[in-house]
């Protein structure tokens, strides 16, 4: 292979890699908050170690959550949540893999808020369900803030609650996601 062709190939590989990295955004300090509201008691938990990638060219979005990293207002809730409901020894991770629809309609060079729809597979407690939720992307100078509020039915993910405490755990849990993406450097 002559030197000229080698230089062209290396150049193309370099620029394709460079272009790719510019499209990828990342966070590992995203937040997921949930609230189980019942007449008997409110139980809420926050996870501040959510890892997520967003590709602004393809719209691909993936995030992973170590369930044990949820922190609770009630100390005793943590034990019940991890051992009885979420069975973290069997299912340590929750994840989402999906796509932001019509991502090409968003001008990422222009700061502003954009309503989006995210579709994909949400895996909780070892059960994967197809979901579609509304969210917001707030495009800023060098970061993108993504947020969404939605509800999760614990029955959909085969999370069972002992009869004795059934009245203390909501069947439908409110979930809020907040992610601040920065350009992925690696």
């Amino acid at each position, binding site marked *: 292979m002559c030197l000229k062709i080698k230089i062209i190939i290396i150049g193309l590989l370099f620029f394709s890699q460079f272009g790719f990295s510019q499209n990828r955004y990342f966070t590992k300090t995203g937040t997921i908050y949930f609230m189980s509201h019942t007449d008997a008691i409110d139980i809420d938990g926050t996870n*501040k*170690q959510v*890892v997520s990638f967003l590709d602004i060219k393809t719209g691909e979005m993936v995030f992973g959550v170590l369930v*044990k990293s949820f922190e*609770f207002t*009630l*100390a005793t809730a943590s034990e019940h949540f991890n051992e009885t409901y979420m069975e973290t020894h069997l299912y*340590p991770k929750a994840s989402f893999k999906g796509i932001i629809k019509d991502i090409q309609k968003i001008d990422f060079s222009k700061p502003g808020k954009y309503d989006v729809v995210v579709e994909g597979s949400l895996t909780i407690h070892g059960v994967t369900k197809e979901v579609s939720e509304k969210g917001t992307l707030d495009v800023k100078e060098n970061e993108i803030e993504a947020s969404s509020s939605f509800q999760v039915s614990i029955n959909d993910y085969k999370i069972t609650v002992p009869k004795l405490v059934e009245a203390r755990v909501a069947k439908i849990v409110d979930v809020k996601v907040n992610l601040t993406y920065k350009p992925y450097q690696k």
Partner: protein
Amino acid sequence: MNKKTVIIVVSAVVIIVSIIAVIYVFRSPDTNGITSKPDYVMPSDSLVAYFDKNEDAANKLYNEKIIQVKGIVAEITKDSASYNIVLRDNNATEGVSCTTGSDQLEKAKSVAIGKIVEIKGICFGKNLIDVSLNKCAIVEK
């Protein structure tokens, strides 16, 4: 014992038990770094390699166990209650993310990027890129 005394004693017991129950339920979670001996000791890149090779097997072996890892500090971030220290080899893309206990703030100040440190914490699994250790304590030699 007359009826009045019985009522007073029973009421006192009910009140004390209620107070203990409320304190138990609403007590602050223990956020200090762990003090127990580690179940496993290894270089940080070996722990990452185990999870990369077979995540399910690594979860079964290491999750909720105390792991002590030694590695190069690649990132340090701080919030109000803890430091997050990522141990990662040069040129690697995955590492071990160590969230310190709230009692480790002073010790963590001496940790700097590029230094080699030993940290022990409870393993929660691997989250896309890093193996996560929590309630971490910096091991002093």
